């Protein structure tokens, strides 16, 4: 922890960066929230503990945050993977941010100024689901088709189309989301059952092979819809079918931008 604070102070003092995105204590003892540290002495307020789960990479593309100047960001492996994935999608340039990589156990902090260093840091450890989520996923997969339909319908019916899931997702950085294009209006604006289903399927497809499974979407969803399971299911499929895992490298290929001549096609007549 001290190590992190020192690094942050150093970076700010030296003027290497103008702001550091990290975690600080939140409203209560159970929550942590983002900190935008701009003065060396503000580093004291930084924390790093199991509360700190938000995928802060979402802030790297926020215009207001970009205006702060050059950024450093405290990144657990998932955030680090997100940064690499964003890089592979041309949203971040090498050297644009300094990553303060936090090891999985939360102890060691390493300064990673290049994507190459970041790639080494993340290795091959994509985030998995939590135990609870695994159980739920297995449960859904074990259902009959009709049950799955009923399950998801009851979940989707609650969706209010606030798009908090989208706002929280660092990979949903489109300047105009498909739901906001109205010529044609692919997806109804209103949160009724048909539109909700379409929204959820579209969102999941758009994240297929890109989702880092940070779980921020599900956390953000005020209606408690376990929508990260959809993207995670697709991540599993992309891995199984194409060996594609998001976030491994800054030059990684998007599973749907490429193909192999022998991709499976048993389902095609």
């Amino acid at each position, binding site marked *: 922890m001290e190590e992190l604070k020192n690094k942050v102070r150093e970076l700010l003092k030296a003027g290497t960066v103008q702001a550091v995105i990290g975690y600080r204590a939140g409203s209560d003892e159970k929550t942590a929230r983002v900190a935008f540290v701009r003065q060396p002495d503000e580093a004291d307020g930084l924390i790093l503990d199991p509360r700190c789960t938000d995928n802060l990479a979402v802030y790297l593309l926020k*215009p207001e945050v970009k205006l702060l100047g050059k950024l450093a960001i405290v990144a657990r492996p998932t955030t680090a993977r997100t940064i690499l994935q964003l890089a592979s999608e041309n949203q971040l340039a090498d050297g644009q941010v300094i990553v303060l990589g936090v090891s999985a156990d939360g102890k060691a902090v390493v300064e990673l100024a290049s994507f190459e260093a970041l790639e080494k840091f993340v290795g091959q450890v994509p985030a998995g689901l939590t135990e609870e989520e695994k159980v739920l996923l297995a449960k859904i997969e074990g259902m009959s088709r009709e049950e799955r339909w009923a399950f998801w319908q009851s979940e989707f019916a609650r969706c*209010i189309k*606030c*798009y908090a899931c989208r*706002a*929280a997702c660092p990979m949903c950085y489109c300047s105009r989301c498909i739901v906001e294009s109205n010529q044609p209006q692919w997806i109804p604006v209103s949160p009724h059952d048909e539109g909700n289903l379409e929204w959820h399927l579209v969102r999941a497809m758009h994240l297929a092979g890109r989702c880092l499974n940070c779980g921020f979407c599900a*956390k*953000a969803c005020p209606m408690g819809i376990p929508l990260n399971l959809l993207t995670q299911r697709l991540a599993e499929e992309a891995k199984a079918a194409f060996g594609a895992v998001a976030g491994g490298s800054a030059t990684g290929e998007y599973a749907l931008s490429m193909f192999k001549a022998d991709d499976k096609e048993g389902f095609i007549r």
Partner: protein
Amino acid sequence: MAETRLIRKDALTKLFEKTRQSGRRILAPKAKGEQAFFEEVTSFGEVCLDHVQTRSSAKEAVFPKCEALLRYKFGDKGAVSYDEKPFEPPVTVVFGTRPCDARSLAALRAVFNWDTPDKFYLEREARTTIISVSCTKADSDCFCTSVGGGPGDTAGSDILLTPVSDKEYLAEILTEKGQAIVALAPELFATAGGAQKEPHLAKVAVQFDVNELAKTIPVTFNDEKVWQEQSLACLGCGTCAYVCPTCACFDIQDEANRQGGVRLRCWDSCGFSLFTLHTSGHNPRHVQSQRWRQRVMHKFSYYLERQGMLGCVGCGRCSRACPVDMNLVEHLKELALHGRNG
């Protein structure tokens, strides 16, 4: 009008039955995961009153997330005719609202009944009975007492229930609509005797002086730095508005196919950049700080000036639901101070 009675907790099942039998729809908090949501319930067993506050608000009863304003049919060559059916929203009982939620109706009504009355809201409200339950516990996000409410506040409720013992609720029957519910099963309501609700209510400290806030906020309007700082973390996700019992902003959208269409109203949020975006590309509120400012100013300044009341009942939902822990009270306190100092 107010009348005080006692009702046993185990009698609620009965009351529920009777209410349902009377053809009324019942919305009540239902637990899901760690949260509770207002949803239609068919038996009392589904109801969960354990939460300090539900995630979603009860405004759905009077201002649904998606409602039809208009239906039309296309005829030959695209001719349009209205598909007119009388508007008959379901007669509804909302059970288990907290006093803050009950109070929120006044804020909604202020918008929907302002100048041009909104049929949809008003008729839904007319058919809705609110049975609230006083708060016996509160959390750090609650601030009803700072905005003029309280854990046992009766405003907006048709019946207010306060648990006065393990077995009993003190029932304040506040309106005719409340009476009508009692009339469904008068036998369940006993005389109150000397039961008092105050001792059982949660203690909610006043966090800021709302009058002072009302004075200081407008002055802060042009102090962009404050708003920028406060909103830096905000993702513009809109959650706060969607869970808020008083947020009334909406969008109107058409959906149609070859046969006809429907004009829908659905919730919207001033936190979205699209909310005010002109087709020309110009956006009067083009950065998040302006949108955050709009939300705060609307509730604590414009509302007061235009509707003569606050646009916030202190339920704390926005703070609880915010994915990035934007805490409204914290910011309000800062604003109250800031305006005073600067």
